């Protein structure tokens, strides 16, 4: 029985963003010398916990104890001083500097005269690198390092600064099996050294291999924390997902017609490969998978934002070259992006200006703006989608998240597309808005629109889709009919588990 307090303890941690509750009553402990896995679907709250631990955001409720003493982690620098280091899928490095310089940036060991002790740096970094069994040296330029190596670089940085807690957020998503093995061996060695490791991954088989203890989060709540050996994979899935499907979504019956979009062998090197599927008129097809599976990337390539290295697309039988968003829009294909603030809205502009953004050519005869037409268009959607705002002239920045999302949706509906790809349309949105959006989607399908729904919320996908496509690691791994699709089967496919394991 341990006498010493755990390295980090969370007690009753809660965090809200406006109407949406990101975390509620999270309590668990992180012990030294153990690998603590955190599992959960997208949006379960894993990232929020990490942000709190690294001082990027502050919790609204609860307290954090570091070695038994309550602490407030004000900012990332405080977290670093406490020995909390985080590693993300996108390593933060200085590409113009060498490995050694990256490791010691801001903390150069100094000799007499205050000069940099290069020899000491080189030998220490070499030592750490050797421990980590990497095949690059301290003098390698980081710009030449791939992601796997950059991750190891971040681990080296953590070791060099005497980190006590190393948080790894989806570290294996971009790695090859060999590199994953290597990483695990490294993690094992770190554990022997007494460092606490928090390991977040959606690859469930990895979780069972590497973790000593697993905490499962779901919908911002703490479900359970159990020693890994006690947790079978099925049990894990059940904990991650197990909820009654509760409120059913208002899904209209829609007549499903001919094939409207056909994708064959879509490939983008390093991102996704050989993705083929069909979409039919009046259909809502769900596209499920974990973050990093490539769903958004496929959508972006279809919409002409990113290039396709191989594959063919045809819309309504005719070949379609996704050269640019304009080309896609001309063929009746629209895409509602995942990040509405960055890609969907122009915040300083009015609702009317945002709604009309993609259809301006039709609203502007001879190139001149017609504010009244824009207002009328906006008002129509404000009524249809129940957007709560004073008038179409109101600035979008001052709207709530839910209403902002409705404005983005209006923009794309204004285009009157034949095919609409929705990427996380109800992400970060309150329950009432969710229902409104679902109602709208369902109605659209009933009117003959084809929808591809990318979502990380299983109930949403299962409730709305006629068919569910599942992507994992850049490949389309499963296609399930509405009847076949259950939460467990979707997660299994998304985690790359083949059917044979029941």
């Amino acid at each position, binding site marked *: 029985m341990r006498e010493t307090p755990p390295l980090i303890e969370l007690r009753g941690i809660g965090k809200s963003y406006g109407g949406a509750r990101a975390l509620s009553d999270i309590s668990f402990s992180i012990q030294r010398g153990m690998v603590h896995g955190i599992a959960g679907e997208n949006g379960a709250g894993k990232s929020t916990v990490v942000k709190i631990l690294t001082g990027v955001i502050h919790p609204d409720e609860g307290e954090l104890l570091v070695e038994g003493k309550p602490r407030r982690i004000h900012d990332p620098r405080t977290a670093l001083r406490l020995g909390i280091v985080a590693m993300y899928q996108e390593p933060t490095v200085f590409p113009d*500097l060498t490995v050694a*310089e990256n490791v010691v940036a801001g903390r150069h060991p100094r000799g007499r005269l205050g000069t940099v002790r290069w020899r000491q740096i080189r030998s220490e970094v070499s030592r750490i690198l050797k421990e980590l069994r990497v095949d690059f040296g301290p003098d390698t330029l980081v710009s030449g390092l791939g992601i796997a190596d950059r991750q190891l670089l971040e681990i080296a940085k953590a070791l060099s600064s005497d980190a006590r807690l190393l948080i790894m957020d989806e570290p294996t998503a971009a790695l090859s099996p060999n590199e994953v093995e290597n990483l695990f061996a490294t993690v094992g060695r770190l554990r022997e050294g007494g460092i606490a490791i928090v390991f977040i991954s959606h690859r469930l088989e990895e979780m069972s291999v590497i973790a000593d203890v697993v905490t499962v989060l779901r919908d911002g709540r703490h479900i359970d924390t159990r020693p890994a050996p006690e947790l079978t994979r099925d049990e894990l899935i059940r904990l991650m997902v197990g909820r009654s499907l509760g409120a059913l979504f208002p899904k209209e019956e829609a007549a499903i017609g001919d094939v409207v979009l056909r994708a064959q062998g879509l490939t983008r090197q390093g991102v996704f490969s050989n993705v083929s599927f069909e979409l039919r008129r009046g259909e809502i097809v769900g596209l499920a998978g974990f973050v990093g599976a490539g769903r958004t990337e496929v959508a972006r390539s279809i919409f002409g934002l990113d290039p396709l290295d191989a594959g063919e697309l045809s819309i309504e039988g005719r070949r379609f070259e996704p050269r640019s968003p304009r080309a896609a829009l001309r063929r009746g294909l629209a895409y509602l992006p995942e990040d509405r603030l960055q890609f969907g809205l122009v915040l300083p502009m009015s609702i009317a200006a945002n709604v009309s953004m993609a259809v301006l050519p039709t609203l502007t005869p001879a190139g001149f703006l017609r504010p009244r037409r824009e207002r009328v268009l906006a008002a129509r959607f404000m009524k249809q989608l129940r957007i709560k705002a004073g008038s179409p002239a109101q600035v979008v920045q001052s709207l709530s998240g839910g209403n902002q999302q409705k404005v983005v949706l209006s923009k794309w509906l204004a285009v009157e597309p034949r095919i609409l790809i929705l990427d996380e349309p109800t992400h970060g949105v309150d329950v009432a808005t969710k229902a409104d959006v679902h109602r709208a989607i369902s109605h659209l399908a009933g009117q003959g629109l084809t929808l591809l729904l990318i979502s990380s919320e299983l109930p949403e996908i299962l409730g709305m889709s006629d068919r569910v496509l599942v992507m994992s690691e850049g490949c389309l791994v499963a296609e399930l009919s509405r009847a076949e699709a259950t939460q467990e089967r979707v997660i299994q496919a998304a985690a790359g588990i083949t059917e044979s394991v029941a």
Partner: protein
Amino acid sequence: MTSFASGVSPKSVAAAAFRLREFGVLAALAATVLLFAVHTTNFATVGNWQDIAADVAMVVVVAVGETMVILTRNIDLSVGSVVGLTGYLSSYTLVHNQGIPTGIIALLAMAIGLACGVANGILVVVGRVPAIIATLATLTIYRGVVFEVAGGSVINADELPGRFLNLGVQKPLGLPLLAWIAIGIALLGALILRWAPWGRDFYAIGSDPQAARLAGIPVGWRVMATFAISGALAGLGGFFFVARFAGIDVTAGQGFELTVITAVVIGGVNVFGGSGSILGATIGAILVSTINNGFTLLKISYFWLTLVEGVGIVAAVTMNALITRRLQVFQRRRRYVELLAARSHGAEE
């Protein structure tokens, strides 16, 4: 670790690109020297090269400071005006106080330059005025000050004490004294950038300012330091000006900032910060001064120099961006091949 099919790994490509920038200038310099040597008789003489060396000295001294500023992803356009201002004020002081030791005059020039640089730093760091605008404004302001203070007056050689004039003429071991001092400054600058922890921070700041902040580097203080150094060295440059040309007028240094920035940029210092060296800037300075010299000898009008400098900057910026982009695409492609190979291996097992 699997490497790319043809055996070239991105690591070595990155290192190669890094060295390419430095040796590229050297190659350009060699080519230029050969070109001029072939086409003019007077180029390849000791006397001429001593002239070039004196020119280079002035550019190098200011380029050392400018390099540091550019490394942090900023720029200092005011150095030309600072050269004019400090040169005038310091020599004016000497003219009216003939007894002051030359060294003190040099320090005076540097002190005035330091003040100018600190003012720049305050504008950029505290006022958060973008460096390009801040130093464009101070370029005009400092020039305005010297115009106002000096009127139309000029300082002539006969007003300056003999021992001072000697400075511009002495050539210990065949190299002008000013060049020796410049070498010293360049070495000092290179040492700082390599051995001083705060000097290393400049690279980090230019490479990724946000990451630098997260790593605990006091970005504000460091940037302030670069502007202060740039100002002080521009002050020294003003001193050099008077020594070399044995006099000064109020238009001294006009356009000099362009020469310095060109030297730094074609010398391989990334205009976006994060990489580059004093050595590269020095070679760039030699190249620019050589071209200037060669043009004069070939009776090509001086006016072509500005054009060449401008084209040089555009070319350097373009090449830099294209090289970096090539590298990124190359890395992504290679990654894909690796992953594909690894996955097919895994499938076989």
